[in-house]
């Protein structure tokens, strides 16, 4: 049976925003297809230009002057690896670190007036540092020698540059970005990753020199790719605000589907 409700004429619906319960942003199939091609092209270009990017990375690391930079073969290019001076503490110091970490974790656990979120993070960090010290005490060696750690860090950074734009590009297909917005976002994510990687390299070099090999795990696991992802999502969300503003300002008939 035909619907009995008369269809609204275009001038009647002009300016009316569909209810949020069932509305959807308007997507253009050609635009999505173009975006998929653009994301793939961006990724291919990234792989093709990776050797050049690694050269820039090496030049930036040399500018940091935090340690001598050598290179090693890596995925079509020369991966810059910084020499790190890492202090390896003796058994007495390791026991002291374990004790301090344990006492610190317990003290923070009972610091009821502190923000629970901060307490959770501090306790996790104390456990990580204490665990690393215990592990080194048991095995008599740090997890990595300086060059192996530097190599792991550099490889992981480059891997993140390659993976993160691709993942955010795919995730962005669920948002009506314009093609240039999508590509700008990917470029920003890549630039953020490269700059962060350089700055973080320098920070790690200083921290491991001043601290000790006990800090390797907390530094790598907490300030490694995690920071890249948080930054990437921050850029993604900032771009979403732009899209949201456009949906708010645009002609409802052009930007929203009723269902």
């Amino acid at each position, binding site marked *: 049976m035909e619907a009995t409700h008369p269809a609204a004429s275009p001038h009647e619906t002009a300016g009316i925003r569909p209810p949020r319960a069932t509305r959807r942003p308007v997507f253009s199939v050609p635009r999505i297809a173009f975006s998929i091609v653009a994301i793939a092209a961006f990724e291919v270009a990234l792989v093709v230009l990776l050797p050049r990017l690694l050269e820039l990375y090496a030049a930036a690391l040399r500018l940091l002057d935090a340690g001598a930079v050598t290179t090693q073969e890596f995925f079509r290019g020369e991966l810059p690896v910084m020499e790190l001076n890492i202090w390896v503490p003796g058994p007495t110091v390791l026991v002291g670190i374990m004790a301090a970490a344990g006492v610190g974790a317990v003290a923070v656990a009972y610091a009821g007036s502190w923000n*629970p979120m901060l307490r959770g993070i501090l306790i996790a960090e104390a456990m990580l540092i204490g665990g690393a010290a215990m592990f080194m005490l048991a095995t008599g060696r740090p997890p990595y020698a300086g060059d192996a750690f530097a190599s792991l860090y550099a490889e*992981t950074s480059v891997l993140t540059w390659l993976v993160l734009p691709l993942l955010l590009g795919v995730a962005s297909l669920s948002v009506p970005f314009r093609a240039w917005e999508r590509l700008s976002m990917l470029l920003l994510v890549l630039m953020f990753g490269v700059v962060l990687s350089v700055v973080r390299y320098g920070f790690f070099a200083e921290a491991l020199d001043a601290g000790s090999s006990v800090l390797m795990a907390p530094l790598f696991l907490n300030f490694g790719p995690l920071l890249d992802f948080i930054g990437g999502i921050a850029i993604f969300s900032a771009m979403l605000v732009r899209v*949201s503003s456009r949906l708010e300002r645009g002609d409802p008939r052009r930007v929203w589907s009723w269902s």
Partner: protein
Amino acid sequence: MVVNLLWGWIGLVVFFMAIYAARHLVLTAGRLFRPQRSAYHELLDSNEDPLTVLIPMHNESAVASRVLDLVVDARGSEKFEVIPIDDHSADDTAEIIADYASRYETIRPLTRRTGLRGKPAGLNDAMGMSSNDATLVFDADYEPSGDLINGLASAFADPEVGAVMGRVVPRNTSTNVLTRLLDLERSGGYQVDQQQRHTFGLVPQYGGTVGGFRRSVMTSLGGFDVRVLAEDTDATYRLAASGWRIAYVNWAECYEEVPTALSGRFKQLRRWARGHTQVLFRRLVAVVRSPYLTRWQKLDALLILFIYLVPPLLASSLVANTALFMLGEQVGLATVVLGLFAVAYNAFGNFAPFFQIGSAVLIDGGRQRLTLLPMLFAMYFVNTCAVTLGLLDALLDVARGRAPEWHKTKRMNEASA
């Protein structure tokens, strides 16, 4: 050997996380690209079937008047009754209810001073004195409008619908960062997850805070189970496994207070995880064996039932990754993948990843609050601890055969009093 075991464990966790990621991607894409299945509001004009509204209350003097004011005039008195359930209150709740009952004939109070305390027990008693089949339930701190009540009730025009659920929207979002983050979570959970489960014909969750059920059906299933904390989740899967549909009405928005302090959120999440896991233990077999559920409905139901196992699983894989790091294994790729999952999945309760929440908030018309998306990760440790403790609680419930105790959520105006 140890190294292989650690790698194997990480691989297993990544596999499970990838399945959840695919689920969320499909739901988000469906919400954005497919025409949405509407609710039953087309029937509103003709639907005036008899209706009962139940409002469980325990020490709710701070909010009782407001919710009764809102529901009492929703319909004419001939086909409508409101049963406020005073469940062992020690404050002025009973007096407030008595005052309303003396003024409005639609209000038929139920006072409970003996027997088990708790929402499921109260609902079971109230069903015994209810006059109507179609029954809606609202928590005392909710603000249901007349349109909302009629909209939810209209779902029962469909004879296959056994329960209905409306959308929960936080009203105290501007209080602090936590309430804003919880608003993002709710948005992702309802605007995309629940709505798309409804559209795809899967099993949306019946929530006992703004929803309803057929009294005859719940009675035939033995009423609400007083031994589980999440009686609504339990009811969802009992109904679904028995062949009843759960309808979701996305436009039926009802406003609630979300926790304003992290300690309150911690307790809430721990309670949810405990209750949800109790349901997993009790209903897993029934869901798997149900002749009424399709393969996809079962798969989605299983993923939802197991959802609170994911945070401790992810945490365990991060510990395994740390152990591999200490052993000097090259953990670059594993750190990248696990780090991504840890950052992407932090909306506990519905477990929505950032892109699902972003899409939901976009549909909702949110703007500046979108910039808070990366902050969801800040709650990772607290959320993981709360969920893990909730799971342990549920395991201890089974091991010791203990019954859960009911704790009332503190209302915002109580906290400030």
